[in-house]
């Protein structure tokens, strides 16, 4: 692919240990084999194959209706695949009902039983398995301690706040020590501050208990903070799988580039290429773009150059070298966010480009104002080149 092999090779020495997906000998813990799920004529999941390894915190990321939740529900046993196979720890899950699967799920709505106390909710699965009363008491107390809810053991769910309910739901789904914990939008119902705090707690708990987590989310920030790897889904298929780093730095498509973080996409055609460089002529940007690595493709083929806003420089004076990677325009919108500022620059070609700049020093007055003529430029290594 467009991700240069060399980049991945020198990442780490013991990659096989921390990154089992890069170890050809590693045995996947969860395996989707050509799984398809149809609802009527609609393909919710279309021929998905996916390997998830033990102890991973794997995120399925995508917009609504992309099939991520269906994939999770098939793993839990609430839906049966129309075709294809699902294995957990080597066991074919076909025909295994939800109540016999080694998975537990944390529901988006938390699905706490309203007629039971916090304690009874957490104990529910253990009671169901016929665990002895003293053992249940011990396990429930331990789990409530882990999620810091011991004080609220006797309360009913409606007496708890959203964040507290989320903790109880987590405790309830973890107490049976499932092989795989499934999380459906685990932080979706929390407000922003609480969400950020809970993200790290969830990762800490995952490290403590060592369970394999598979989560579904539409929030790219949540996925990037928490997940070891992310599968970006769109219209029932997986667009790209990778670590947050790989997905952000080396997106394989405009969809992934757009979904993870912000990006300026500039269309152009390949006019010159070599083993070491490539030049893309873009009418949309009104300049030639110089890339410091080779691209796979032939001359006059259309490409999209993906430029992250934070990799762009904005200056009042023209840079010394203006042959490549340099465009001029006018500041159209300014967003002052405190830590960073964002500028929307209208190029002469009519294209709008977003630039973000850290406010690393204190300013007496804003650096740029509306209608200021500016230059936007970037390094040869800043762009990634996409062909779809």
């Amino acid at each position, binding site marked *: 692919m467009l991700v240069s092999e060399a980049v991945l090779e020198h990442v780490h020495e013991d990659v096989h240990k921390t990154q089992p997906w890069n170890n050809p000998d590693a045995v996947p813990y969860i395996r989707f084999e050509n799984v398809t799920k149809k609802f009527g004529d609609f393909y919710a999941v279309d021929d998905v194959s996916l390997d998830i390894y033990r102890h991973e915190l794997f995120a399925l990321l995508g917009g609504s209706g992309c099939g991520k939740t269906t994939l999770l529900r098939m793993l*839990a*046993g*609430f839906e049966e695949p129309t075709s294809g196979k699902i294995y957990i720890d080597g066991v074919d899950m076909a025909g295994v*009902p*939800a*109540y016999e699967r080694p*998975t*537990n*799920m944390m*529901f*988006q*709505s938390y*699905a706490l*039983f*309203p*007629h039971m106390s916090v304690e009874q909710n957490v104990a*529910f*699965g253990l009671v*169901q*398995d016929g665990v002895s009363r003293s053992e249940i008491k011990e396990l429930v107390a331990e789990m409530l301690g882990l999620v810091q809810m011991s004080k609220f053991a006797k309360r009913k769910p*409606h007496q708890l706040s959203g964040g507290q309910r989320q903790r109880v739901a987590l405790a*309830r*789904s973890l107490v*049976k020590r499932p092989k795989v914990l499934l999380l459906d939008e685990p932080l979706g119902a929390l407000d922003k501050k609480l969400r950020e705090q809970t993200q790290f707690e969830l990762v800490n708990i995952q490290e403590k208990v060592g369970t394999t987590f598979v989560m579904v989310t539409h929030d790219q920030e949540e996925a990037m903070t928490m997940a070891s790897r992310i599968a970006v889904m769109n219209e029932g298929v997986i667009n790209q799988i990778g670590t947050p780093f790989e997905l952000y730095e080396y997106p394989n498509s405009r969809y992934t580039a757009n979904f993870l973080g912000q990006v300026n996409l500039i269309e152009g055609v390949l006019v010159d290429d070599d083993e070491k460089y490539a030049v893309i002529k873009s009418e949309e940007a009104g300049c030639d773009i110089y890339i410091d690595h080779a691209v796979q493709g032939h001359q006059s083929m259309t490409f999209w150059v993906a430029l992250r806003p934070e990799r762009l420089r904005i200056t009042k004076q023209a840079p010394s070298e203006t042959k490549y990677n340099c465009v001029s325009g006018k500041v159209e919108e300014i967003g002052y966010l405190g830590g960073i500022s964002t500028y929307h620059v209208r190029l002469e070609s009519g294209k709008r480009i977003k630039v973000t700049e850290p406010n690393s020093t204190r300013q007496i007055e804003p650096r740029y104002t509306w209608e200021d003529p500016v230059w936007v430029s970037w390094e040869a290594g800043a762009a990634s080149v996409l062909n779809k």
Partner: protein
Amino acid sequence: MSSDKLTIKQRFDRWMIKHGRVLVIGIPYFWLFLFFLVPFLIVLKISFSVAEYAQPPYTPLFEWIDEGIAITLNFGNYLFLLSDSLYATAYLNSIRIAAISTIITLLIGYPMAYGIARAQGSMRSVLLMLVILPFWTSFLIRVYAWIGILDREGLINAFLLWAGIISEPLIMRQTEFAVYVGIVYTYLPFMILPLYSTLEKMDVSLVEAALDLGCKPWQAFAKITLPLSMPGILAGSLLVFIPAVGEFVIPELLGGPNTLMIGRTLWNEFFANRDWPIASAVAIAMLIFLVVPIMWFQHIQTKQEEGQQ
């Protein structure tokens, strides 16, 4: 001050802001006073009088004697209810028949309500419509239809005889069985609708969570669905039980002479014996029997509402 210049409309608006609340709340209370409390007090009054051949056929409760009001309270009617075992039997019989009918209605209605609540969008409204549809024809006509079905020469017997399953027609009409059929048939929608509304509101993921935590489907039903639908079960049961206790038309048309129910006894006292005071006493006693479950129901409902808050 400027109050002289207020238009009539402004004055009216100010008056409404001050007293509108009382007015709005007052209307239903006035309605209840006029059409519930006043008739109740009249019946209560008659129940304390003595029957006589006159117009109206009972002695007055209040009389002017020597420039004072003499109140003659006659507890004889109530004592009579206690002394004659007919009334106790009728009450107990009514409660027994109503209770058994309620249980049968619940057993039939629950799966139906569950099915409707879990049906897909358009199918659900069709099914709900089918439940409500019978209300559009007269209740009396529907009960008469059952006579045609259950009669000695009715549809069921005709079919069974034709099919050769029986050689003698079954006696179904004028039995307690026919009364159960009538009550269950008539009151089924009152069971289904409240059950449907609680089941429909229930989050399906609760059942999924129970399955996920190791429950087989029937265990998930027993531990989650059933306890959470309790308010619906109670509401439905009371909506069937209370009117079934006082039911008159169904035992009269479908029941036999042995089906003694309080509604029929009341009717007989009133129209056959023309003993208004006894009839009134029967009615008051029945009301007391029914008020207790109604109050219990209200108590549970308020508790449930508090729980939701």
